[in-house]
């Protein structure tokens, strides 16, 4: 992990939330993210996948310290964000920006496109003159494929795809090293989605940006990812090169997840589905054994008794007693 090109390194990260707990009831703890470690290199895209409630958005938010970190560390460019004060973290946000799921809702309806895109500059580079700011906005809009005459228009005048471009321009204007994209294309139609995905991959290449990509759409993820992290109830199930995992998943959960993706494949040797029964258990339970055991088709007695640790299997890390 001491690699010089490691931009982000997350170590044993846990995020817990207190739920309820008033005069008459006892609080329960939601274990949204539990002991997660991974590293992200310069110019690399790491995707976090999992079902709803798996903790993927919380994990991303914890990386930006938008939620409080319960345990562990988030090291960005050599600094542990978990130990910094809120004020200090705010200064670091220049290096880490976010693109949100709902493109229209994430833009202020009362500001023009120019004001929206320029806002991060006002916070992070207040020394710039109005002239310089405008020039930067123009350059960024140009790089993202937004026309100059859109500058004075308002978000509601744009389609979802255009609005998402504005959101991306806003994130990129401060030239971050890390971009976190939380379901950036799931609200978009296929043809528009392709435009935005191509844009993301172009800017990533041009700027050697590191991308943390969160999505529930495994086809999109396969298209954009260098590496993949599979999350279940806040636990890492499998993490490694996306190509390897898609070609040959080792964790039973990854297998089930990938096989459930509907595909346009009419060939006779189309892989058979692994069916999962039941739904995600409550995240308030602390697991002694493997959190996936209750739905796992391979589960044995040991799975309920002992939590599997990440072990290297076929070139990637898998947390399972019976991988393969």
């Amino acid at each position, binding site marked *: 992990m001491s690699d010089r090109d490691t931009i982000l390194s997350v170590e044993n990260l846990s995020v817990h939330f207190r739920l309820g707990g008033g005069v008459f009831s006892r609080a329960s703890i939601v274990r949204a993210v539990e002991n997660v470690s991974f590293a992200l290199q310069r110019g690399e895209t790491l995707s976090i996948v999992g079902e709803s409630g798996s903790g993927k958005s919380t994990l991303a938010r914890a990386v930006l310290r938008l939620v409080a970190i319960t345990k562990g560390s988030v090291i960005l460019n050599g600094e542990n964000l978990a130990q910094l004060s809120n004020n200090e973290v705010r200064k670091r946000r220049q290096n880490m920006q976010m693109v949100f799921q709902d493109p229209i809702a994430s833009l202020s309806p009362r500001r023009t496109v120019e004001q929206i895109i320029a806002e991060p500059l006002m916070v992070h580079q207040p020394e710039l003159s109005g002239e310089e700011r405008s020039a930067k906005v123009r350059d960024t809009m140009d790089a993202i494929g937004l026309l100059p005459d859109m500058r004075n228009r308002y978000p509601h005048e744009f389609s979802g795809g255009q609005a998402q471009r504005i959101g991306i321009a806003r994130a990129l204007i401060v030239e971050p090293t890390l971009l976190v994209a939380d379901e950036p294309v799931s609200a978009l139609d296929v043809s528009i989605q392709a435009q935005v995905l191509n844009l993301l991959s172009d800017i990533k290449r041009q700027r050697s940006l590191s991308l943390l990509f969160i999505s529930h759409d495994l*086809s999109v993820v396969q298209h954009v990812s260098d590496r993949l992290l599979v999350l279940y109830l806040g636990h890492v199930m499998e993490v490694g090169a996306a190509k390897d995992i898609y070609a040959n998943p080792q964790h039973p959960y990854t297998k089930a997840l990938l096989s459930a993706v509907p595909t346009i494949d009419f060939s006779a040797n189309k892989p058979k589905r692994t069916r999962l029964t039941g739904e995600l258990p409550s995240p308030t339970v602390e697991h002694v054994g493997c959190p996936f055991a209750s739905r796992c088709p391979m589960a044995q007695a040991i799975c309920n008794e002992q939590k599997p640790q990440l072990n290297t299997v076929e070139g990637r890390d898998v947390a399972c007693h019976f991988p393969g």
Partner: protein
Amino acid sequence: MSTSQTPILSIKDLFIEFETPDGAVKAVNGINLDLFKGEVLGIVGESGSGKSQSWMATLGLLAENATTSGEVTFDGENLLTLPPKALNPIRGNRIAMVFQDPMTSLNPYLTIETQMVEALRIHNKRMSKPDARKRCVEMLDRVAIPAADKRLKQFPHELSGGMRQRVMIALALLNDPEVLIADEPTTALDVTIQAEILDILLDLQRERGMAVVFITHDLGVVAEICSRVCVMYAGRLAEIGPVQDVFTDARHPYTLSLLKATPRAAQSQAAQSDDALYAIPGAPPNMRMPPPGCPFEPRCACADAHCREQVPALEPLQGSETRLKACFREGSSAALLEALVHER
């Protein structure tokens, strides 16, 4: 699907317009389509293509500012002109619908039991409450809801999204409909839950020989469950045919563009993740002022002057009984693809 069969439901020259303060939105512009007994017909298209509205119209569920023309024939009657009183014994009974968002389509104030029993007894006046209740439990069992007895007593908010959607399906199938219209029923769900619900839906469809209209934007889902597919763009049909034929040999440039814009998670295929996706340029037309010619012309890689002036009719492909397309351009899928690649 052999064309000699008589359709169970037939749409002729359907037009739908919505009156708005900014002018009329021409949402559906002349659809002709037959639905056959026992088939699963996929309707794909992007937002605003009219895929939902054309089927909402068949059940009289359009918003008040809508005007329709044309015919939707079911059992000898035109559903578009039936008064609500005559339509009520048909909808929810012989033609049922499942919507995308199960939270907003279930009543949050009523238990699952109240809602299911009502749906049964409104169409079967003489059915006793205990009988109705028994039938509800059976139906919930059928859609794999564990502890159905207990679930009946619960309110919608006490169920997960997947459970609610199962309840919606159970509710829709209570009266053994001949036609089920499913509008993006699994779009809000996780893939694992989606797979389970699609299996249940297909099982029930086969068991009852019902016709299913499956409205979705997900081409993968269509490939997995549908027998025929109908591709819509800007309120018109672009292409219809057996799913495998259309998806492996698309003849309309829009169908092909859509297929090339879709990222594939294909485990059996060599990863194609290195190529850029085909991004269809521009955006769908403003339906207040649809273009005079083919609606896809402004974004089409194969269009010429002719396409700008005249709307192509939906016509059978040469030598095919099952496939139709609305495009002036002749030629194979490969030839169209060349035009797309060339443009890029």
